């Protein structure tokens, strides 16, 4: 016996029961049963047709006009039935694309994976959480014994297009000419790569800094990137890491300003993407002072515990809906 026969006889029984008892139990039974008919891909117009047939059986004296009205209802439901079948097929495609995106995300993770350096001179924590599956933020550490360079970037745009850009930037960075000593030269160089390789609608913001262990100096430059914070241990106060510089990819020949900070024991550098500061709550954007308050509340922790704790606090503030990729790096001079 195929499902349609079961459907028809069960429908008749449950409907008959409902009409006799007008009980909630019969309605519940009907609704449970309708799940099965959806699973078996029975269209709504078929349900109407069965309903009509059952009424005719139960009430042989039913008026012809009432029966005729069901022919009309079936006709009317036909387009609903089609929309519903389309739904099934869209769903299948959706799952296919979803799994493609998951594969892409894992490739990207592999590609961009950068270990967080463990050093004696500085305590480093870093965390990057994508808003969707694929991350459009990016960070990278390169250590060479006497200094560590830190890049943090954000592609304008999210998802798949951003992933493509990121993997490009990663290769560009891995193959920089020997100009690693000056953050502003690095940005000038990357700007040329981005400008010549990406179409004009794609931009990347980037912060690039080098921490020198001997001099305990931090030199940096930025291309339109969200400002970080500098924490002075002496005054227990935060200062914005002010920078000027055009985003990467707009014009081919751009020079960047370079800045320097002398880092004292206990001082802290906080780098972030705008996904951190532009966290939106029901009451609008979070103030930067809220971020520094949150940072301050975690100061007793290690750098890695700090970034994780800060993320959880901000996630909760946003009601667990992350709208932009979130990247946060903390560098503490021990």
């Amino acid at each position, binding site marked *: 016996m195929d499902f349609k026969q079961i459907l028809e006889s069960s429908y008749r029984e449950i409907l008959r029961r409902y009409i006799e008892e007008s009980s909630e139990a019969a309605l519940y039974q009907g609704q449970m049963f309708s799940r099965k008919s959806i699973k078996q891909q029975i269209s709504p117009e078929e349900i109407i047709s069965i309903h009509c047939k059952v009424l005719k059986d139960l009430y042989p004296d039913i008026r012809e006009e009432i029966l005729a009205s069901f*022919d009309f209802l079936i*006709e009317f439901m*036909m387009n609903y039935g*089609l929309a519903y079948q389309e739904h099934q097929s869209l769903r299948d495609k959706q799952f296919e694309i979803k799994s493609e995106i998951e594969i892409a995300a894992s490739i990207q993770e592999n590609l961009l994976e950068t270990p967080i350096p463990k050093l004696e001179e500085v305590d480093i924590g870093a965390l990057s959480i994508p808003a969707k599956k694929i991350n459009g933020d990016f960070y990278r550490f390169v250590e060479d014994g006497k200094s560590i360079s830190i890049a943090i970037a954000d592609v304008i745009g999210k998802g798949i297009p951003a992933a493509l850009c990121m993997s490009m930037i990663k290769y560009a960075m891995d193959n920089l000419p020997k100009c690693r000593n000056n953050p502003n030269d690095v940005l000038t160089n990357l700007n040329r790569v981005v400008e010549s390789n990406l179409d004009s609608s794609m931009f990347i913001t980037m912060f690039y800094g080098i921490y020198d262990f001997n001099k305990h100096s931090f030199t940096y430059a930025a291309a339109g990137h969200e400002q970080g914070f500098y924490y002075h241990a002496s005054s227990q106060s935060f200062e914005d890491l002010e920078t000027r510089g055009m985003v990467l990819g707009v014009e081919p020949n751009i020079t960047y300003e370079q800045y320097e900070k002398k880092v004292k024991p206990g001082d802290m550098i906080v780098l972030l993407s705008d996904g951190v500061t532009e966290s939106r709550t029901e009451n609008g954007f979070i103030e930067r002072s809220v971020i520094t308050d949150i940072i301050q509340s975690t100061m007793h922790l290690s750098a890695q515990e700090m970034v994780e704790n800060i993320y959880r606090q901000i996630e909760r503030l946003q009601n667990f809906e992350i709208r932009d990729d979130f990247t946060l790096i903390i560098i503490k001079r021990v």
Partner: protein
Amino acid sequence: MENQSSVKILSEWDIVAARQLGRNIAKELGFGTVDQARITTAISELARNIYLYAGQGEIQFEPVNEFEKRGLKVTAVDHGPGIQDIRRAMEDGFSTSGGLGAGLPGVKRLMDEFDLITSLGEGTTIQVVKWLRDRRFG
């Protein structure tokens, strides 16, 4: 062919005429109410496409037998501009929810067989078949 009958599509009224003839033939062949409605909806779409995009054309009906199967073949013929992008015309998600109707994917779903021949500037022929099911149902 003696078993063939057809309706010329020149105005919107002819869509109704094509539906009516198709439904009558389907009923005679023994299709149930729901299948009649499916066939009629498919005819509606095909005729409307002709009316909207080709200006004029014809819907032909022909009962078919194949081994033990019996069914109804509906052919829509026009000499309009043809379909530019077949892949796209057969893609889901554009027509139904925008209220544009079933579209070609809808016609394909409503019927059991679907065949399309089109060439730019020369026109389009769409042939669909609905087979009778063993039990009369729906």
